[in-house]
């Protein structure tokens, strides 16, 4: 019987951190720690003597983890970024899902696989949610500005809503721009003229 793997998750957002921890715990018996405050990150991580460190690939503080790859660094056993050829498609899947994993020297691949599978699935889901959220927000903002532009046109020209939208759409088509861009220009110009 070997001791459970020790995993450190570096994530400042509390909800995201909890989601990752839950996903890991569902997939096996692990000793999971979260580090939210990145001050002195390498030393904080070293204190847990982890087998695996997980961090978002877009997190700028990733560079702090590079110190852990040095034998003379703060960790007893140096870690390597998880890219080994033996793991095959897993490494690429991790990069694509947006998770970077640092794995301690000598960890058997079969112990790592369930951890990576769970992390990849979770990061992929979070990435998807973030993209969807961004898109929803943008769509809402576009609709808001189009509504305002329609209102301005309706007032200025004494026309109905459908007609106002038709004007915006025609201008957009003529200029090869998006309706939202034309609406934005109109709202800005109207603001300047006030």
């Amino acid at each position: 019987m070997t001791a459970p793997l020790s995993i450190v998750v570096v994530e400042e957002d509390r909800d995201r951190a909890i989601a990752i921890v839950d996903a890991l715990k569902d997939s096996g018996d692990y000793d999971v720690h979260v580090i939210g405050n990145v001050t002195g990150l390498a030393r904080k991580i070293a204190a847990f003597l982890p087998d695996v460190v997980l961090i978002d690939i877009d997190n700028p503080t990733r560079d702090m983890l590079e110190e852990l790859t040095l034998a003379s660094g703060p960790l007893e056993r140096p870690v390597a970024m998880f890219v080994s050829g033996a793991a095959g498609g897993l490494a690429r899947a991790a990069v694509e899902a947006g998770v970077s994993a640092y794995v301690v020297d000598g960890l058997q691949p079969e112990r790592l696989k369930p951890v990576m599978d769970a992390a990849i699935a979770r990061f992929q889901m979070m990435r998807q949610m973030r993209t969807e959220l961004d898109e929803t927000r943008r769509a809402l903002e576009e609709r808001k500005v189009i509504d305002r532009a329609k209102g301005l046109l309706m007032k200025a020209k004494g026309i109905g809503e459908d007609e106002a939208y038709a004007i915006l759409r025609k201008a957009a088509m003529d200029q090869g721009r998006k309706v939202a861009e034309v609406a934005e220009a109109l709202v800005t110009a109207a603001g300047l003229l006030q």
Partner: protein
Amino acid sequence: MKTVSLPVAYMPLVDAAPLIAAQEMGFAEAEGLTLDLVAAPSWSSVRDMLAFGRVDAAQLLSPVPVTMALGLGGVTTAMSAVSVLSVNGNVIGVSRALEARLRQVGHPFDFADAAAAGAALAAVAGGRLTFGVPFPFSMHVELLHVWFSATPLSAVDVEIRTVPPPLMAQALAAGDIDAFCVGEPWGSVSVEGGSGALLLPGRAIWRFAPEKVLATRTEWAETEPHLLGRLMRAVWRAGRWLSQPDSRTAAAELLSRGKWLDVPSEVIDRALSGHMVISASGETRETPGFLEFHRGAANFPWRSQAKWIASQVASRTGQDPAEAMDRAARVFRSDLYRAAMHGTGADLPGASEKLEGTLAHPTPVASVAGRVILEGDGFFDGRVFDPSPG
């Protein structure tokens, strides 16, 4: 003309200028290329994007491809540094608290004398100092070690810690670090924000330090030699354009755009011109050659530069220095540089290695086309590095 799109990763820094100018000023297009420039959130990310094939070329800290060849760091894919993108351009800065103590002991903040600055800093350090640097494998780290080794700072308990540059000012203000070595615009940003003062330019330690390189996977360089040649020539012409004084204003405006650095052009202009503002009270210092993109055969990847980096790193990690230098020399591809630059008018020195640190002044040396003027390359303590000892 139909152009080929080439993905290239970079960090949003002033010394990414040759890549940005190559795309924006039409040098890439003239070679039939469109550079798809991908901004990275960290140096590990730049390296990984290149290693995993997300991009075909990247701006890298000059020690990164060398240390990868030495098996250090997370990834060890074979890399080729095909040209030097920039020489010098780093600054060493201190917290406001240290600035005040240095002024008390009469340090003039001349932003030039590394020996005097080291002695003064050691005198006020109180026995220990923590320096922030952007990456464990960087010219920043190497310059600090050179500086420490030849000043009373060698007797101070100094720690070097990795801090992403956007967090440097915050770490300084919070007291997590006492000082830093970073590339522009981050030094000037800390001055503007009132968290630090600049003590030395990098070139006060080594007058001609290769800072960033244009790197590709060695395998890609071998399978795409023509594409690589076009990229190298476009970037070289961009560097030549940047080195002309008339280009400076346009370059600062270009880099300052939200799409690129999103920093005021006046702040960027400091690094490009060498007119540095070093403290919150607005003191200015002139540093000619603060950042070089072209002069003195700056883009030539000297194998001796790679060997110098390797010998420094090997001495700290306990690797065999001769073997480390041998591996490193194969990373800086003066052979590919010569092949790609033939016929462009680029300075091609007769040799691919030189003694590092012997030139006190700009000096003419033998070149393929007659003579090339090399800039001074001295270390502040007068040390000389011989790439082929014995």
